[in-house]
């Protein structure tokens, strides 16, 4: 009896840990194969580029994980990045005396505001998240285009301090991935180790039961959107810092990449399951694939198709594993139930 229980726990644990491990394995294979075909792939610049690109995606994925774990979705993040990048760019271009910290705060505040709008509509208005954030995706994009009016922000207009945030490094580690890792670790620790962090999983696992158990569902869903928006705001500032040149439709369509990264990273789209570590690894994997395909001179069309195929693979594997785990648990229960 105890032997059965212990082995069941082993299997279940393994399945959930296996996701992070298998992403790392996939990354290793991908890097090895690509580097074998083209030595430049592992050049210092090449690796740095991958991490710089992955950092912004990973930040967004961490925010998105929060939302998806509560069985919701935030499709507006790409638009928020675009809006923040442009407005903060304009803000800094207008007066070079304005500091980087102020810019970051402004960006996070704008993102948080967008998050609050999403959160209110979803949690208080009880409108399905898909519809709400699809709506705000277009609304925010529209606002961005209105503000931009066809202009663009150029790197020369921006203070050098900001640009060095995007491309500089400390002890050889670029700032961007450092920020992403710090945020990921903080959020991951919070979600796992704090009672309020566990509420998010409870809500996604069974919204009805969460309400009955006295979990403040609305407040937590609100918080998830707030955090997703704030991180998208931060990502917007980092985007500006990294690319310098920004037009109104920056980060257009990124929301789908973010959701892909999160799902590939093992966060269940139906809520309740997954970690920010997995999501961030998913972001790194997707970015690496894109870079590898460029290095391998694969047609850009295939890059998207491969991302899509990977998504389908991840979801199929999840489904298969879920069925297998369910079967194991059922067998175990049959044994001690009757």
């Amino acid at each position, binding site marked *: 009896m105890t032997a059965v229980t212990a082995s069941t726990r082993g299997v279940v644990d393994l399945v959930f840990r296996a996701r992070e491990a298998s992403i790392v394995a996939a990354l290793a294979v991908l890097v090895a194969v690509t580097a074998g075909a083209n030595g430049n792939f592992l050049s210092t610049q090449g690796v740095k580029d991958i991490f710089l690109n992955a950092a912004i995606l990973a930040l967004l994925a961490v925010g998105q994980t929060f939302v998806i774990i509560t069985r919701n979705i935030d499709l507006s993040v790409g638009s928020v990045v675009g809006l923040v990048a442009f407005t903060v760019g304009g803000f800094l271009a207008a007066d070079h005396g304005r500091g980087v910290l102020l810019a970051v705060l402004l960006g996070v505040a704008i993102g948080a505001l967008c998050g609050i709008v999403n959160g209110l509509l979803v949690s208080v208005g009880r409108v399905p998240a898909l519809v709400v954030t699809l709506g705000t995706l277009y609304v925010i994009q529209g606002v961005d285009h209105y503000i931009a009016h066809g202009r663009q922000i150029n790197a020369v207009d921006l203070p050098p301090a900001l640009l060095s945030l995007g491309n500089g490094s400390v002890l050889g580690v670029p700032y961007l991935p450092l920020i992403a890792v710090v945020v990921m670790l903080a959020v991951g620790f919070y979600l796992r*180790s704090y009672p309020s962090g*566990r509420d998010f999983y409870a809500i996604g696992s069974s919204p009805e039961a969460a309400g009955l158990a006295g979990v403040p569902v609305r407040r937590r869903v609100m918080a998830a959107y707030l955090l997703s928006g704030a991180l998208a705001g931060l990502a917007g500032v980092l985007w500006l810092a990294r690319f310098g040149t920004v037009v109104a439709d920056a980060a257009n369509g990124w929301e789908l990449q973010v959701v892909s990264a999160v799902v590939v990273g093992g966060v269940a789209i139906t809520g309740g399951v997954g970690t920010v570590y997995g999501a961030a690894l998913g972001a790194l994997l997707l970015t690496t694939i894109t870079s590898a395909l460029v290095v391998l001179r694969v047609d850009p069309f295939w890059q998207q198709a491969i991302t899509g195929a990977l998504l389908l693979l991840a979801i199929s594997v999840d489904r298969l594993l879920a069925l297998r*785990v369910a079967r194991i648990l059922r067998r175990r229960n049959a044994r001690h139930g*009757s």
Partner: protein
Amino acid sequence: MTESDDRTGTAVPVLALTGVSKSFGAVRALRGVTLELYAGEAHALAGENGAGKSTLVKTLSGVHRPDTGQVLLDGRPVEFHGPADAQAAGVAVIYQEPTLFPDLSIAENIFIGRHPRVRLGRIDRDRMHASTAELFARLGVPLDPRQPARGLSIADQQLVEIAKALSREARVLVMDEPTAALSGAEVARLFAVVKALREQGCAVLFISHRLDEIFELCQRVTTLRDGAWVASEPVAGLTHDDLVRRMVGRELDALYPKRGTVPGEVALKVHRLTREGVFTDVSFEVRRGEIVALAGLVGAGRSEVARAIFGVDRWDAGWVEVDGRLLPPASPTAAMSAGLALVPEDRRQQGLVMDQSIERNIGLTGLRSLRRSSLGPVISRAAERDRARDWAIRLRLKYNRLSDAVSVLSGGNQQKVVLGKWLSTRPRVLIVDEPTRGIDVGTKAEVHRLLSELAADGMAVLMISSDLPEVLGMADRVLVMQEGRLTADIPRDRATEESVMAAATGRAA
């Protein structure tokens, strides 16, 4: 009649409702209801479906706030602004379908919202697992605190809920039909746990449609009818008939109005049907005019046999004949056109489209015959409505409008809609899986009358049921399954509780 208990004078009830009313739109769910729960006493709440029991439970648990009247805790009025308030006051509710988080571990399910913590507010997982193991040891339940709740049987899920109540040191335990989906052994284990809690001074409110259970577990009973309080009285001295009369408000027609019929030719023949790991070598026949019960413990494979016959699941060996013609495997469409109908066990998940109207639900099985011939594959709304009205009358359905969503109907009336949906296909063989589970006595008698009439008209009926009195009262023959095998075929005159249970549990009869 109602103030015979001297306790009422001396002790203060732990939790009480006085003159509570609650309306939802035009529906008055509760009208001036009074209820008193005392420490160390198990109190039953009886009433038909729609009598207001669930609304009352939700008022106690803080989900609903009363329109008028008061909730009293230790004699002092309180207001619960939500489930969290009620929990903080020591009220634990166990719903019919347990409300666990499938993705969280069992221990987290128990401690959600009140995790033990270490410094800086972090969760103390070791302590959480140890406390959970301790709770399970007290309850005598062999469950692993670290296992996810997904995959637990309903019985185990309820025990997790009880452990949760225990860990909160709940003073009031409210159980809303906890036994509806449990087997006999599981009910016994549950009752042992509840009795122990009661003896430790917990007040228990127990809801069940099985009157035997009320008599076994409870000391007092409050009866509701149509949202109004009827009586509160000690259970001792009451008879089943008294209780039924209070619930129904009239003398009940016979609960098992079985008419004698002469079985005709074989309508359904199942030969050595096997689905690996689920059921093995199952053979039986059902004749026209016959009601054959398929009895056994929950998990014996009865529903699975029904699903295979109807083609929902495939089978690995054997064959099925309807009216002498072989049925192709795994095709519900072929089964339907051969004249089979399956009324599934879980009406909410498998039997109904809850958000759609009564007429749509009834029409769903006959979309082809509802076509307007001149327009090709276009459904005639008028024909759909006519059919629904026809069946609503025959089944004595209680409804407002046929265009209402079935989700607003009570459980018994929902079951009638599922029956109507399948009977409107005019089946030759009807398979019903737990046709009266969770239905009040009044509706139960109506369903039995209907099955009896259908058999008298020459339909072959296969009835899966865990309700032994129903099996014995309704069936011409009783088939018993145990662990995936058919272990007995008992004719009506030799079927007794003992002979059926012996075959179901594998003890020699």
